[in-house]
């Protein structure tokens, strides 16, 4: 395994800084660099995802999608972002101003925290707790608070219904996400994200983990679609019924934050799927094919991680344009009567597999 270790690069930079300035100043500079990088990657990725979904949605419907701004319309979402930045922020009457202003902060912070946990490559991970997976679940569930506050504080019936639906949906599907992640934690025996990825060096979990891993992956994909409020589970923003759901009253960049966080959440759930099931930044190896494996090793780890995440996102976007929207009772029945019991039994199955060593 000769994947490039980014730790070499960061250590060299760290030593370089330490040699020209005191230790605390070096730490401050590094923190600022990390913050700026995080901000840049976060916004560029969200903008790219908006473009990605618009293009895919167009191709699924035999259209071209955005074509005017830049080659193949790649600059379209940048143009949209600047447009949204110069839109008026409308001052509303009869709203709860504090909660109304607080909601976008919660939504963005939740997605930023879980975004920082994702491993981009070897030695290229910002937050690396030994309970990283647990932290990620905890951080991403702050987002639902922001959505509930946004809907409640807007003092509008559409937003209230949208927020309530979103609350019920997100907390329900979070259980299945947690259970399928726990199934893989049982298999790996660690909650640290580095540990999870390292454990997949000799084969991705979806190949190593037998049937329970495949079931967990399918449950995870469905539940992640539900948790990010994406179609066919996009009830909170069902535009035919609720105009725009919980962010109906938000205007200008205020609305932009919800939009940004929504697309970033799509990337985050795809990133978690690729790290739990598809080997994170580990290259694809076929046992016995030495030449093939050597070529796969030459592809940088960052490319592997982003490629896998884009692949999972592609599947989730595909869901949206293939299935009609479900009703709220169908949505909750799917979670509580199917995914949740199956997830619990799958957990027991995985434990049996692990305890009696039935895996590869």
């Amino acid at each position, binding site marked *: 395994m000769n994947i490039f270790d980014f730790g070499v690069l*960061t250590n060299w930079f760290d030593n370089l800084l330490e040699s020209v300035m005191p230790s605390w100043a070096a730490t401050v500079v590094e923190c600022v660099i990390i*913050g700026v990088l995080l901000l840049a990657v976060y916004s560029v990725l969200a903008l790219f995802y908006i473009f990605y979904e618009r293009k895919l949605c167009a191709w699924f419907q035999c259209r071209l999608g955005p074509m005017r701004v830049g080659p193949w319309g790649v600059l379209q979402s940048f143009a949209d972002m600047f447009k949204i930045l110069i839109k008026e922020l409308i001052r509303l009457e009869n709203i709860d101003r504090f909660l109304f202003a607080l909601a976008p902060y919660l939504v963005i*912070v939740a997605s930023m925290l879980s975004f920082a946990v994702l491993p981009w490559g070897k030695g290229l991970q910002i937050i690396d707790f030994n309970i990283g997976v647990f932290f990620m679940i905890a951080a991403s569930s702050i987002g639902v608070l922001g959505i509930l506050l946004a809907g409640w504080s807007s003092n509008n019936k559409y937003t209230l219904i949208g927020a309530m639906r979103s609350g019920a949906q997100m907390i329900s599907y979070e259980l299945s996400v947690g259970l399928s992640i726990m199934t893989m934690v049982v298999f790996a025996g*660690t*909650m640290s994200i580095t540990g999870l990825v390292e454990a997949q060096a000799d084969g991705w979990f979806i190949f190593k983990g037998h049937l329970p891993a495949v079931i967990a992956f399918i449950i995870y994909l469905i539940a992640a679609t539900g948790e990010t409020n994406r179609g066919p589970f996009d009830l909170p923003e069902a535009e035919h019924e609720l105009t725009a759901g919980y962010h109906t009253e938000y205007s200008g960049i205020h609305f*932009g934050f919800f939009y940004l966080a929504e697309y970033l959440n799509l990337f985050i759930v795809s990133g978690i799927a690729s790290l739990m099931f598809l080997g994170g930044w580990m290259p694809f190896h076929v046992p016995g094919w030495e030449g093939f494996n050597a070529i796969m090793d030459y592809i940088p780890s960052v490319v592997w991680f982003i490629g896998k995440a884009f692949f999972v996102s592609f599947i989730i976007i595909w869901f949206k344009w293939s299935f009609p929207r479900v009703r709220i009772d169908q949505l909750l029945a799917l979670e509580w009567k199917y995914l*949740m019991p199956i997830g619990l039994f799958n*957990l027991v199955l995985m434990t049996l597999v692990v305890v009696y060593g039935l895996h590869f």
Partner: protein
Amino acid sequence: MELSVFGIQSTTLMVVALITGLGLVAAALVIAGLISPRSFSLQKGKAYECGVETRGESMMQFKVGYYLFAILFLMFDVETVFLFPWAAICRSLGPDGLISVGVFLCVLILGLAYAWRKGALQWK
């Protein structure tokens, strides 16, 4: 503590990510406030509706169904919190660990079955 990129503690970097998130929202709002146009109209401040005035209070009581699911969620989420430490060391516990957590899971599945039987999972 666990060290991450540049050998900085992960807790510190968590705070950095937190501040970055807050900074993103605050900075974008300041920029938008500086360059966006401002206008005043009595109609603009009204709640977004289909053309007629909203009737009655909007911050009102809502369907109890959502509340029931929130309570069920609480039960199973706490269960998840209890199960995670077991999940991490499940391999080394062996069959004994499986039996003891099996009892725990059985009680929870019974709870889910009870809620199901009582019709709490039925959207009314």
